[in-house]
């Protein structure tokens, strides 16, 4: 099942880079687009903290008048480049149908980064998706 359009477009763009090194460069570029949120925008509370993410990632979903949500990931570790890249991609789901967001497959992490992730790294990234899905549910 395709992902909501903004995320699917990003995945389609990444699919243009079958070479692993090129894909990594593309992900680094996506990560470089990321801008962090202030503690006022995303409170650094225990309940907002993404579990298992050593990059110190916090998440908040702001309800919008049209019933959708605005998704915000705060990545406080400047070395957390993978988390920034994923945050940038997941934040593109802001304004999408909550049901569609809740239905996205957490395997999207592996579609983005490939299977060559350590167990620890993959869990942190998957948990970012899980928190997003939980907020949309």
């Amino acid at each position: 099942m395709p992902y909501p359009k903004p995320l699917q477009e990003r995945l389609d763009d990444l699919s243009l880079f079958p070479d692993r090194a090129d894909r990594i460069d593309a992900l680094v570029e996506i990560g470089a687009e990321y801008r962090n949120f202030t503690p006022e925008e995303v409170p650094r509370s225990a309940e907002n903290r993404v579990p298992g993410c050593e990059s110190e990632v916090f998440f908040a979903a702001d309800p919008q008048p049209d019933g959708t949500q605005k998704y915000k990931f705060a990545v406080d570790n400047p070395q957390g480049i993978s988390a920034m890249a994923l945050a940038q991609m997941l934040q593109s789901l802001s304004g999408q149908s909550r049901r569609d967001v809740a239905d996205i497959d957490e395997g999207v992490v592996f579609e983005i980064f490939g299977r060559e992730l350590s167990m620890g790294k993959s869990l942190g990234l998957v948990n970012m998706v899980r928190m997003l899905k939980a907020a949309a549910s």
Partner: protein
Amino acid sequence: MSEIAERGYARAEMLVSTDWVAEHLQDPGIRLVESNEDPLLYAAGHVPGAVEVDWTRDLNDPIHRDYLQKDGFEALMSRIGVTPQTTIVFYGDKNNWWATYAAWVFHLFGHENIKIMDGGRLKWSQESRPMTREVPQYPPTTYAAPSRNDSKYRVFRDEVFAHVKLGGKLVDVRSPEEFNGTRLHMENYPNEGALRGGHIPGAKNIPWAKAVDATDGTFLPAWDLQRVYQETAQVGPSDDVIVYCRIGERSSHTWFVLHYLLGYPRVRNYDGSWTEWGNLVGAPIER
């Protein structure tokens, strides 16, 4: 942290400071190698001149649970422009966890001319030293490696069984919760399939990160390491020591500490570790 030479290490020359690395960036006899857990970090910026060795792509066999073989190692060394005479300086994320893992695998092929950059990527970036996204290209070398020799630094389950029977020293570098069996994996890490929790009989629990100063990732001085390993775990330089964790990566960090910083001559890494032992039918376990 004090100067490396003043910390009382048995083999202080195995560690180099970030200052030293900065002074040797143009040294043709040195090859800087970055090894990380995060696959994007190197591409996002690395020490100028450093090449990347990726622990999944470059060091592990893609099919078998094993490391690369002689031909793969030769190809890797050729690709990164290394000869047997090249001094390799490893560094990386997570307090050099993956850097020491790569260094340990290189030892299996007899390339022991290595150093670790103390503090790794964390300290280099904390000091706002230059980083680049430019991937260096070095002329390929012809590297004739010996066949992989696992006997010196690596140990397999049958040898661990014999070691346990003889009351040999084991250091379990996992978290206390993994050691006592209340958790089957690192905190915040998924279960990689071990059916039983606990530890290998007789093992002492010294989590790997106790060897580093968490503020900058540097190794603790020898006297602090001795207190941790000799006084707490009763593991000394005359012991035949086996270290293990979950799959052998965290324990390679402890292998480096015991073998080089404390100078223990006989330290081997059991990379089968808990994912093998915790699933072995009939294997003895303590909690």
